[in-house]
């Protein structure tokens, strides 16, 4: 009998509990930019000046838009699920820093990735992962085309890398304004996010 040779390279997956233990044991190099995505240890995109500027600008704009009672985290870990601990470029969570001294937040109301070379991964792989976790508002700040891509309405999709995707995708250029789902009264100029 002929068998199709369709075997994909599979690597050892890690649970979030294992990942956190590896960090505690100091197995990784200091300052290493890694994230646990669906059990896989991903190397984060190297940060150029534009990338870092976009993170800082977005954090400031979101702090102003959300106001008190919200915490804007930059490149902080999110305890997303059993086998994922991503570090989105910016994430807005309820409360204040001390609320998360014992465990990472798990459900940001807004998650932002700044994308240059990681555009495909941020759209497809991370989009599917965040949709699976039910994150309602996911923004990809696309530095290649200088637009903001807003993803909403998570829906199951067997074709997605993690079985989910966002049903709604809107693209805003630098002249547009955007309103986060969690603060309907706020309005942010996309130009305030772009580097």
């Amino acid at each position, binding site marked *: 009998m*002929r*068998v199709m*040779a*369709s*075997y*994909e*390279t*599979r*690597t*050892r997956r*890690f649970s979030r509990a*294992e990942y956190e*233990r*590896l960090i505690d*044991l100091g*197995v990784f190099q200091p300052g*290493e930019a*890694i994230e646990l*995505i669906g059990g*896989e*240890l*991903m*190397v984060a995109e190297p940060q150029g000046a534009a990338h870092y500027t976009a993170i800082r600008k977005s954090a400031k704009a979101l702090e102003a838009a959300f106001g008190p009672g919200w915490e804007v985290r930059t490149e902080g870990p999110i305890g997303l699920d059993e086998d994922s601990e991503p570090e989105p470029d910016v994430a807005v969570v309820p409360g204040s820093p001390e609320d998360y001294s014992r465990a990472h937040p798990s459900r940001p109301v807004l998650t932002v990735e700044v994308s*240059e*070379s*990681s*555009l*495909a*991964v941020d759209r*497809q*792989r991370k989009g599917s992962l965040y949709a699976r976790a039910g994150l309602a508002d996911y923004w990809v700040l696309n530095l*290649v085309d200088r637009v903001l891509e807003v993803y909403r309405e998570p829906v199951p999709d067997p074709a997605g890398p993690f079985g989910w995707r966002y049903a709604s995708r809107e693209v805003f250029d630098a002249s547009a304004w955007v309103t986060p789902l969690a603060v309907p009264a706020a309005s942010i100029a996309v130009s305030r996010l772009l580097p």
Partner: protein
Amino acid sequence: MTQAARPVLRRWTRHEYERLIDHGFLDEDDPIELLDGLLLVKEPQHSAHRTAVLLVAKALERAFGEGWFVQTQSPIVLGDRSEPEPDVCVVRGSPRDYVDAHPTRPALVVEVARSGLRLARGRKAAAYARARIADYWIVNLVDRVLEAHREPARPGPARRHWGYAAIETLGADATITPLSAPSAGIRVADLLP
């Protein structure tokens, strides 16, 4: 602008790999091998695979004779980021020569592959070629042939990764001679389950 649809996976060093084992993240018996920094899950051991491994080991022991030994599914070291466990490999000397460190330069490496054929021809061939393994065989259980990969070649205009410049496919009725045992002749039929 290049866009990776697949994430860039973190690569592990051999030292880190050993720490994973020491801390109990990996067990000696786990079907995992470190290849080019990736912790690869090995092809499941179905009975035909196991049979082929035993047949190859037996044939190679006979072909190489004194001064060599044959190890099955045991680690070899190919550099800082690779510690694979090929199905079969032939190493110079005797087992006691490697009490303190794994062998690094096998004379012949053999992988038995069915579902793992792409991995054996791709990533594994690249890692073995880069380590200058001169003789690499794949017992291809899908087509019931032996693929002899020789002449390790560096990346260049013709190839994006390390690989083998000479690949010969031999049917069951053919005979093959290992590069390091020039007077031996092995019938491919004797290697197939």
